[in-house]
């Protein structure tokens, strides 16, 4: 009977309770959407970083990590790559020679990292082929082909077939350079990466630097989840000759942002719960104050204070639970829809590109998020019931009976 009484009490003022439930639905939808957006943004950043830039794991000469010097090459890099390919969980490995230099056209000059790659290896590890925006990938023959990003092509006023000059320091410490011909433009979601990288054949670069060595091994794994396991195996394999780092160590800022997602979502949930709590306190205060005499009658006829408290708590839980359930259902539907069609952010492409975020995001939250939000709604409702209940419970039956609102 207590449950029935509480449920009917909640809905005796339908308009007021409906407004509260609607406020909870919209509030929850906002909190879930924001969390879904933050998760989607972070996932997009990580996926793009792994796909286009860092791969799952990278190996370098420890000195290269400190100074990125040409001389800090990885001994026996190709042999090491062959060994790594045989490790369980490894999908592909690419070997790169890296040199920092200047890219110059007739129009302008930019500082870039020159990636000397073996195309076949590279496309097996990164999404270079997918990111081809115009022209073609590096050909196997022909003199000094180069791939530049579309952003740099626009800045340097380049077209397919344009000639550019790369200048850098060779292994002997002398400034050297050579003319390259643009064979293709690439465009990744990472604008910072696009600004700072060009691709040439590793053999061409080795000929110019006078260094037939590599500085970087990038490893793609069969699954993201294997990262720790394979990293441990590779550390054991390479010993002190190379440092093995995962994407989080290569991109510490991105790793820190990822780690803060839970914190961000907790703050969003806390703000929502605070607003919800005050809303329920307000509704329950109005509800119990206008029923003060009714509570007096209940107490006079033998209802204990514990039962009065239970009644008020159940009412708050019903109110919060109704809003919570409906809010979760609406949020789930909206997220399911947006998860299919995506949220377009094309107008913010420039800004999102800096962080490596796609221009279409597919908000998502894990199933456990709904459960924990619903549990939080119930806990907040429970806590919000105590203050209004206290206002009634501190009255004696005769005080409650004689009070008029």
């Amino acid at each position, binding site marked *: *009977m207590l449950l*029935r*009484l509480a449920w*009917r*009490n909640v809905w*005796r003022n339908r308009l007021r309770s409906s407004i509260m439930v609607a406020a909870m639905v919209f509030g929850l939808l906002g909190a879930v959407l924001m969390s879904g957006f933050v998760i989607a943004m972070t996932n997009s950043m990580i996926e793009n970083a792994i796909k286009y830039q860092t791969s799952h794991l990278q190996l370098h000469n420890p000195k290269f990590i400190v100074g990125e010097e040409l001389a800090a090459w990885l001994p026996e890099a190709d042999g090491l790559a062959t060994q790594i390919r045989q490790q369980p969980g490894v999908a592909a490995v690419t070997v790169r020679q890296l040199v920092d230099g200047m890219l110059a056209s007739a129009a302008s000059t930019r500082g870039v990292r020159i990636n000397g790659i073996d195309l076949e290896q590279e496309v097996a590890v990164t999404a270079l082929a997918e990111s081809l925006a115009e022209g073609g990938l590096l050909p196997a023959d022909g003199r000094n082909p180069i791939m530049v990003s579309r952003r740099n092509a626009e800045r340097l006023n380049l077209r397919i077939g344009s000639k550019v000059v790369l200048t850098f320091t060779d292994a002997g410490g002398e400034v050297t350079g050579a003319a390259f011909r643009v064979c293709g433009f690439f465009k990744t979601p990472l604008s910072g990466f696009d600004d700072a990288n060009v691709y040439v054949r590793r053999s061409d670069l080795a000929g110019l630097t006078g260094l037939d060595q590599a500085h970087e091994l990038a490893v793609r794994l069969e699954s993201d989840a294997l990262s720790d396991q394979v990293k441990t195996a590779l550390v054991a394999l390479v010993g002190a000759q190379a440092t093995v780092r995962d994407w989080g160590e290569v991109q510490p800022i991105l790793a820190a942002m990822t780690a803060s997602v839970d914190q961000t979502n907790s703050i969003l949930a806390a703000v929502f719960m605070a607003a919800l709590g005050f809303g329920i306190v307000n509704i329950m205060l109005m509800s119990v104050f206008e029923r003060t*005499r*009714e509570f007096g*009658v*209940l*107490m*006079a*006829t*033998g*209802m*204990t*204070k514990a*039962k009065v408290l239970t009644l008020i708590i159940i009412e708050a839980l019903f109110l919060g639970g109704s809003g919570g359930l409906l809010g979760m259902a609406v949020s789930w539907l909206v997220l399911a829809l947006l998860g299919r069609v995506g949220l377009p952010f094309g107008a913010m492409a420039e800004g999102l590109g800096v962080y490596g975020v796609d221009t279409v995001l597919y908000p998502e939250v894990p199933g456990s998020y709904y459960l924990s939000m619903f549990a939080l709604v119930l806990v907040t409702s429970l806590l919000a019931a105590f203050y209004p209940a206290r206002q009634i419970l501190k009255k*004696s*039956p*005769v005080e409650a*009976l004689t009070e008029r609102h």
Partner: protein
Amino acid sequence: MSIVVDQLTRIYNPDTDFPITAVNNVSLEVKPGEFVAVMGPSGSGKTTLLNMLGGIDRPSSGTVRIDDSDITALGDKELISFRRDNIGFIFQDFSLLPVLTAKENVEFVMQLQGRSHVECATRSLQLLNDVGLGDRLNCVPGKLSGGQQQRVAVARALAPKPKFVLADEPTANLDAVTTRDLLDIMQQLNEKEGVTFIFSTHDPRVIERARRVIVFEDGIIKEDRVQ
């Protein structure tokens, strides 16, 4: 169950410059099965007296003994249990729970006693039939007239099988015909269930039906007569 009131006093705002003595050193005894009207003008202290008899207000001094229990000495929890099991209340404004049907209103107090659903259902049906509302069981108070609501309140007061019923101006909001019907019902139940009824009233229609009339004025008993 007899009620013995001994030198009962209730002073409001006792520590202020303007204390109000609502009940002043009243002593009386009500025997089992009596049908008593406490009459007097508004502000005479009738309701305060009934509140103390019912254990919903505590006296400034004096005692209320119901059989062997001094209810003024009971703690809050014991008093709630005592009220629940021994006293029925009827209020001037009916004070039914508006979200419950007539039957649920009657059952609710029995459920507070922990009685079984079957017992609650059977007794509520019997009581509502007794008060002539057998065909209005599932109506919420808003769908009932004032007289019907007060009859539900009578059934509710009797539901927990109380030793006595306290009715605070039960006919104040009722017309003559409804008042007569309600008094008939209460008198029958008084005889059938052997329950003591104590009314506060200044309604002459109630007073003429009471078998004992206590005239109350300025917090003291002016007259106590058997009719």
